């Protein structure tokens, strides 16, 4: 039992911090522009695909640096020539635009790279077990993912709260007109933040691609979960996004690891049900099966009982 718990916790942390890399960009973009970027996970997918293509010619490490940059530039272009144009038609139009963009990127990825799963490998340098615990190996690559994610979190936090740029960004979020009056180019700040946010998503894609497999559906798999995290954490709240990311990561990891379900529960309660109902799959359900549903259940519950999310203050 302890080994299950330790590994579930470690895997949950890896997933949670990876989700945070996506959620942090999404939530900062939301607090600036008030639009939830549906295509955010598509940039994550683009990161993985670009890095895969680059790694074929120049190796993994070049891809790790170049792919997020390309994705960031793409993101900035999307903000400048797409979102800004749609902005005048209101939030619904913006949300619909990013939805369409997500759809388009998925199709474009299939056009350029095909529908099959890409054999995107972890670098040889990190292809060894970091440590062995209770007879199970924890790969060095997962340790690397953990390090990068924590590094990004600390770096982002420092930049946003300690640096001059971070202060201007924070000010632009709460008082855009005042910041503009002080002579800062607010639209440029928006574009830059959008670019950096998408670059972070791209970086997450680069490091997640080899582990979570690089295929055209990878954006869809993670996309709605990242949405869930941002909403649960409270729209626009960075600490909230961190807590929610870890919560979701651990929750899913534990649910998959735990080998309990309705049969055990019914046995515990000493109940028995006749099995002749169209919904009698309910009585054989176990936690691993409903793990993919849990985030959405949590989302609906949070939105009903606390629409501002865990740490959110803004009532919109």
């Amino acid at each position, binding site marked *: 039992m302890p080994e299950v718990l330790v590994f579930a916790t470690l895997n949950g942390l890896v997933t949670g911090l990876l989700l945070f890399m996506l959620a942090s960009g999404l939530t900062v973009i939301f607090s600036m522009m008030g639009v939830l970027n549906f295509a955010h996970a598509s940039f994550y997918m683009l990161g993985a695909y670009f890095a895969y293509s680059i790694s074929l010619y120049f190796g993994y490490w070049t891809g790790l640096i170049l792919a997020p940059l390309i994705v960031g530039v793409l993101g900035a272009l999307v903000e400048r020539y797409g979102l800004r144009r749609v902005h005048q038609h209101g*939030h*619904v139009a913006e949300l619909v635009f990013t*939805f369409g963009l997500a759809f*388009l990127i998925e199709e474009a990825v299939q056009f350029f790279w095909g529908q099959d799963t890409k054999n995107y490998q972890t670098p040889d340098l990190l292809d060894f077990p970091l440590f062995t615990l209770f007879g199970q190996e924890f790969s060095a690559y997962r340790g690397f993912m953990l390090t990068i994610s924590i590094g990004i979190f600390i770096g982002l936090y420092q930049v946003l709260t300690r640096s001059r740029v971070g202060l201007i960004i924070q000010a632009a979020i709460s008082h855009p007109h005042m910041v503009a009056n002080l002579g800062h180019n607010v639209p440029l700040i928006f574009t830059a933040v959008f670019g950096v946010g998408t670059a972070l998503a791209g970086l997450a894609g680069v490091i997640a691609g080899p582990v979570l497999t690089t295929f055209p559906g990878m954006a869809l798999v993670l996309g709605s979960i990242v949405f869930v995290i941002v909403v649960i954490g409270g729209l626009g709240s960075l600490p909230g996004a961190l807590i929610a990311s870890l919560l979701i990561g651990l929750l899913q990891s534990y649910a998959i690891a735990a080998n309990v379900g309705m049969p055990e529960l019914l046995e515990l309660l000493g109940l028995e049900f006749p099995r002749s*109902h169209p919904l009698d799959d309910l009585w054989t359900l176990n936690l691993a099966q409903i793990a993919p*549903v849990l985030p*959405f259940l949590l989302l609906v519950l949070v*939105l009903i009982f606390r*629409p501002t999310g865990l740490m959110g203050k803004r009532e919109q």
Partner: protein
Amino acid sequence: MKTLAAKWGLWGGYLAVLLLLPQVFDSILAISIFNQMAIAIVFALSYNMLLGQGGMLSFGHAVYFGLGGFLAVHVLRLMEFEAMYFSIALIPLIGGLTGLLAGIFVGSFSTRKAGTVFAMISLGIGELVAASSLIFTGFFGGEAGVSGDRTFGPPLFGMDFFSDTDVYYLAVFWVFVSTLFMYLFTRTPAGRMANAVRDNPERAEFIGYSARWVRFISFCAAGTFAGVAGGLFALNYEFVTDENLNLVTSGRVLLMAYIGGLGFFIGPIIGAIILTLMNFLLSNYTELFLLYLGILFVLTVLFLPRGFAGFIMMHQAAWLRGRLHGLALPYLLTGLPALLFILSAVCLLELSHASEPVLHFLGLSLARDSALSWAGLVLGAGLGAFLTARSTPGLRRAWEAANAPETRGGRERAS
């Protein structure tokens, strides 16, 4: 009186077109496309009740469509095993009732807010139901879905529903009734208040209406008609799977309504027809259909925020002033190069994706290895783009001239 007559004429014409279509195009293929269109029209119109008229952006509208379809197909199965006696003609009603019940349940907590919160709840519910459909295989049939047989009901007016044509006439009835009711809904106080709440919920509350209650009514009505569409789907295909209630279907109905034009009653009808036709015409010829659809959708959101219907309605002012003919030549001058650009770009995409060495497309034979065909296409695309860019200022001037207010009074007031 004149407008009343025009309105009656319009609805009569709509019914006549629906009834005459299978007489004009009577191939099996055409009928199956008409059936698809009929389902899409009801579904897209129901979506417009939410987004166009109520201002609620939903990413989970397929839930009501799919649940309606599943219940309908289960009733078909019960009829098949003679566990239940029911009329085939009323199957869409089963779907509608299911949609209504699901709408009442979900709407009771999701309509408190519009905007992002509503969109997120709808996404969450959509994902929840889609995921549950794969868990509860007893009811949803897992990945294989549930199939039924529509020919076990009592015959209706001599129709036994063996052929798609019988289904079409039944669908016509439901499409006409649904369209009529959805139109009439927009004229009721509830429909009018839905518009008010969409535009300014605060003001609506100040004059004594509960924004939440108004949204709830629209939401339930939209769920009902989505369920009717689902019931029609079950009748037409005799087969419902988890794909009918997941995000893909929800996204497709959003595309239809948006491309057709939100806010105009006729918009979603146009969108449903265009997308069904595109789906049929293009998906046989190209594997890149969804890519084109994505491009079309993003371009519509960027440049035609009110969709095709909005584009047509933009010309109303010029038409009323009798200046529409002045736009014909500028449109032609911009449209033809744009068409050249689009066709060349499509050929380029197709050629780069072709699996065979020679691609036969649009009457052209393009060799993948020949530099000439690549160069020709690039040249065509470049020329088209250049000429389009050159002629747009002229089009803009013509547009402004056609829409400029009258300089001398009189005619303006008369029209």
